[in-house]
């Protein structure tokens, strides 16, 4: 457990600092955070896919086969890469919070 704390001018319980370590090893803390973050990201995608598939089916505008064979053009591919970078940052930003020494 990290012992870095801040005290308010009016006393009370000292408040933990920015990056408390709960699991004795900061790598373990980061790993747990990444797992939860990944779960959030997976849910975002699942929620969107369910939404899209429901809309597409209801409107009869697209078949499942068309989704499977989709090839992005250059602009779409660039947009996908930007999305991928954001996804990776969301999940792995935790790595920056591991202090070099404990």
């Amino acid at each position: 457990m990290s012992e870095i704390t801040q005290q308010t001018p009016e006393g009370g319980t000292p408040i933990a600092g920015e990056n408390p370590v709960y699991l004795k090893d900061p790598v373990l803390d980061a790993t747990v955070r990444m797992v939860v973050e990944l779960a959030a990201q997976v849910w975002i995608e699942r929620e969107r896919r369910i939404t899209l598939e429901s809309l597409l089916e209801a409107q009869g505008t697209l078949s499942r086969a068309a989704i499977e064979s989709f090839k992005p053009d250059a602009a779409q591919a660039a947009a996908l890469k930007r999305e991928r970078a954001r996804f990776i940052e969301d999940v792995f930003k935790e790595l920056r919070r591991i202090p070099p020494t404990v």
Partner: protein
Amino acid sequence: MSAVPETLPALAERADAAYLDFVEGFREYILGKGADFEDRLNTVLLTEQARRGQPWDDVEQIREYVHSLPLGRLRDRLSRTQQEMKWFALRRSFESQRAELLAELDRYDARGPGRLELDPNFVHPPYVNVHFHLQPGGYYKDALSGYLYHYGTKVFFRGDNDHDELHAKLVARVPAPADGRVERILDLACSIGQSSTAFRRRFPSAEVTGIDYSAPMLRVAHRRAAMLGDDVTFAQRLIEKTGYADGQFDITFAFIVFHELPLRIIHETVREAARVTRRGGIFAIYDFTGTRDKSPYQRYHRWFDARHNGEPYSQDFCDCDMNAILADNGFEVAAAALGQRSGGAGYMTNWFATRV
């Protein structure tokens, strides 16, 4: 029939809403029966207590034992993580539309019904300089604090605060003064004014005033009330030094603010409430349950919340005797009743006190 306007701020993207939806569900999971940390850890604590042959002396002893358990440490990690995730997503989503959100507040500042009274010379006392619940910028340092708080408490209350449900329920339970006269109501530390508007709806002819130290909160409170068509005054004032005349209010109300005050300010606030509440008027408080009513796990949760969730004053509040403080300041307290709430170990108590 026209729909009730949506006062929750819109998020930038559907993905942001889905992310926060996940956090809300995950929060429910780790605080409730999903991960079942509370019951499992409390059972272990009671077993250990029996083995030692004496009750847990202080929370430091409980903390030491919980931290010796991998399950206890993981519970802490996940509790902190869900809170950090919430603010991370909210801040990013609102940051990307900061200019529009501020312009929206500008549009409402001078619009009715109701009015907004900000004090350009307001000085924040040092004790409020805390990032309560880890909210970035605390309650007043970011112009978007009110929006962050509104969406943050929606996630926090897990379905009880999508459309002010909790506030409406708690305000409905507040007793009116015995003589039935309710002309003026004061909502102390009103934040974004959800209780204030609930009071206005319950007593449509009463003059309702919400006060808070945070201008960003009050601006959101005013926008919200104006959108809902509720005529409420929101004023930037200190709850321990309101500046209102003696005996001016029939009902004075404080919803979960006392645990965010240092003991010194708790005493000052009760004294001030006694001054501004007329004889026979009601001072209604909802806040955390005191330490002596808590299980070992709940005492631990209170410590964790204080230290790791930006609630530095909450332990002192839970240890203090509010009944005695109220009585010392001229209030007669009806028996404090427990408002149980599943999960979170933050069970609320209410004090419905009459000014004598």
